[in-house]
């Protein structure tokens, strides 16, 4: 208890100036990535042997914090950027300053996102799903699962609008309660939240997963939810593989969101990179640290060091003019989202 009182005293008077490293989190305290960063920082400190503080730079759709890092902080050897899947989606379809190609990965978590559906849903019922730019991969998956292989974006838009109620304006908490109450009949969660909010719900069942991104650019079936990967379900339902105008856009956006779900970056040439990677590796091998982090996001692999860069490079190969144009067009016509086509992303 004396230790606790001492710690509290230190905490009350501590300032960020005492920190050795700073994690930039692009959202307010209490957000999902902010909480993840707090947990990782507390665990990482034990192996790093130095103090880590969290600096929140919030703003619209979590873009300003990452922009600030890109423009002013990436050359600071003691500053590390924390990004999440939403930043990946924004990178593809909004005007942002940041560019993953400009950084080195310290490490990242390659997650799968899981969708659930109410058991009382019957074929022919409308799917009721929370809208938002973070739901774009689910929207694209749902459009293909419900409509099969169609020839044009217009045909998909018409089919989507006929079969899906895309509900705007919902926070995460509201979405979860609405799904529990049956006001929504579909939802999606990260693996840990899925267990809590969908798997434990007697009225819900597994619907589909996006799969786990592999080194070669393919997506593998998640062993935690075998047989429910989008591509497997599509083929089972329609008797053919997904081969349509939406599929490249779907693959692009799901990979950028889930493959960079939680990621740590430093500027290129950072002299501390090796030390950071070594200590992060040590953290990912410490069972106590792994347990604390898994409780937040689920049991998924860390890609540390060059493997993180490799993942980023794999993602960049999905960026094609067709995929980007389709993404922007379907965002606009089906989801009502204002998106921007960014030709500069295509190499």
């Amino acid at each position, binding site marked *: 208890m004396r230790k*606790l009182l001492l710690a509290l005293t230190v905490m009350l008077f501590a300032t960020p100036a005492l920190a050795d490293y700073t994690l930039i989190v692009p959202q307010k305290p209490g957000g999902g990535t902010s909480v993840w960063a707090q947990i990782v920082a*507390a665990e990482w400190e034990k192996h790093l042997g130095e103090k880590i503080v969290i600096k929140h730079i919030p703003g619209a759709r979590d873009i300003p914090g990452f922009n600030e890092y890109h423009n002013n902080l990436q050359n600071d050897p003691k500053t590390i950027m924390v990004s999440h899947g939403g930043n990946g989606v924004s990178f593809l379809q909004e005007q942002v300053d940041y560019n993953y190609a400009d950084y080195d990965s310290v490490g990242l978590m390659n997650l799968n996102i899981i969708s659930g559906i109410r058991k009382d849903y019957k074929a022919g019922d409308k799917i009721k799903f929370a809208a938002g730019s973070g739901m774009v991969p689910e929207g694209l998956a749902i459009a293909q699962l419900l409509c099969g292989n169609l020839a044009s974006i217009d045909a998909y838009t018409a089919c989507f609008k006929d079969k899906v109620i895309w509900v705007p304006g919902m926070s995460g908490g509201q979405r979860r309660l609405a799904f*529990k109450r049956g006001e929504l009949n579909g939802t999606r969660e990260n693996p840990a939240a899925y267990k809590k909010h969908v798997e434990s719900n007697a009225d819900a069942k597994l619907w589909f997963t996006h799969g786990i991104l592999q080194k070669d650019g393919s997506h593998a079936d998640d062993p935690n939810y075998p047989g429910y990967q989008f591509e497997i379900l599509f083929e089972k339902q329609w008797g053919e593989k997904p081969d349509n105008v939406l599929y490249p856009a779907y693959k692009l956006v799901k990979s950028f969101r889930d493959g960079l779900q939680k990621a740590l970056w430093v500027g290129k040439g950072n002299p501390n990179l090796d030390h950071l990677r070594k200590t992060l590796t040590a953290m990912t091998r410490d069972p106590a640290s792994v347990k604390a982090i898994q409780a937040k996001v689920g049991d998924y692999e860390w890609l540390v060091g060059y493997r993180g860069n490799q993942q980023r490079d794999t993602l960049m190969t999905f960026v094609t003019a067709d995929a980007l144009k389709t993404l922007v067009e379907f965002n606009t016509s089906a989801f009502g989202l204002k998106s921007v086509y960014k030709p500069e992303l295509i190499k």
Partner: protein
Amino acid sequence: METILALIAGTLYGLVIGIIPSAGATTGLVALFGVIHYFTGEPYLGVVFLMAVVAASTTGDSFAGILLGIPGANSAAATMVDGFPLAQQGRASYAISAAVTTSTANGVLWGCLVFLLLPWYSKLLMILGIPELWAFMVLALATVGFVSTSNWIKSIVAIALGIFLGLVGVDPETNAPRFTLGWFYLQDGIQLMPVVAGLFAVPELVYGLRTGQTARIAHNELWLGVRATWENRWLALRGGFIGAFIGLLPGLGGTMADWMAYGSAVAANPKEQFGNGNIKGVIGPEGANNAQKATSMIPTVLFGIPGAPFAAILMALFMYLNFEMGTPDIAADTEFFFSLGFGFLAATVLVAILCLVFIRPITHICTVPYKYYFPFLLFVIVWACMQYTGTLADLAVLAAFSVLGMLCKHYRFSRPALLMAFILADKIESFTLQLASLYSVGDLITRPIFMAVMLFTVGIFAYSLKRKGSIDYA
């Protein structure tokens, strides 16, 4: 013994955090990530400690609002409207003892109800759907009229301006910027802290400096404040009920609870003036915050859905102690429930005792001439508002709202009405979009709670149109 020490440590820390302007429970809990591992060997002690922080910071946040005219947290601004004038009249101990007594009574009452009857609430949460939440939002908007001044035109302008400012950000349907004047900073909406500080704290500070006033500690009115709470017990309980209801429903927010409770206090006393030091304006809203904190734990514990931002941080800290909210394990863990209830309830009582015992030295801050603590207060306000991005943009928003606040004060436009409309605007918009997407009129008229709330809203609206505003505060 260790449980008591954890309780005392959490209470003292929470009280300090509560008193610091703009800090509040959320900020206080974030700072605990660095020390929570000290409790991993004794996790139930950790639960007691954390709940003590929540309870103590919630009670302590009324000090800054009443004594300095700066809300200790966003949600404490409503108490400030009548509390600060009381302090200026030399009646700070009267206002603080009434605020602390009301907070304590509601904290204990709703703490007991929540923690003893927690498993029963899940059914209630399942009954209240989007239509009921929407109806409740509209009811909240109808109560804005009660925090308006007697000049209806000015009040309507203030409400319209509040709604407009609340809609600044992005369109929730298209993600496109809205009313941002091309300034990216505003796409996340206008932040609440600079709005509250600019509208309320800065104008009072400037006014105090200009008039050179120094409040007097005329009397030690500690027991008068306690007695006032007893005499207005139904008012205090109603405020607690409003806070408790809002805490139960994720996404509504504690700030709304306080202002709704304040509006209901004004509405229930149509012949009295508010905004110039009416103790009912302190007792009405003060308990809402504590009740909201208690009931926010219901969706948090039962479903793992945080009922408020502080609850999201609390969930993560609990995770460190191996308590995962919303799981069958936690529902069966009686020691967890005991620690949760004990920490919250005992700290609520302990912090009340501390506040009342030390009320005299604390309230002496009011006797310091303005010119001495004006720079300090200004620094604190600026610091608090720069916690959002830490850039000059935060200061620009604070400056703009300070000018607006001073204009409203000078020309008698209702600042409470403007703020409440600002808080409600985007919530009403998002619930309206949800309602329109998922329900038809035929669905809605078959929902008895929805219909009852809507009828009540119509009645409230008609009543607020008929009577003249009785709040003497702009």
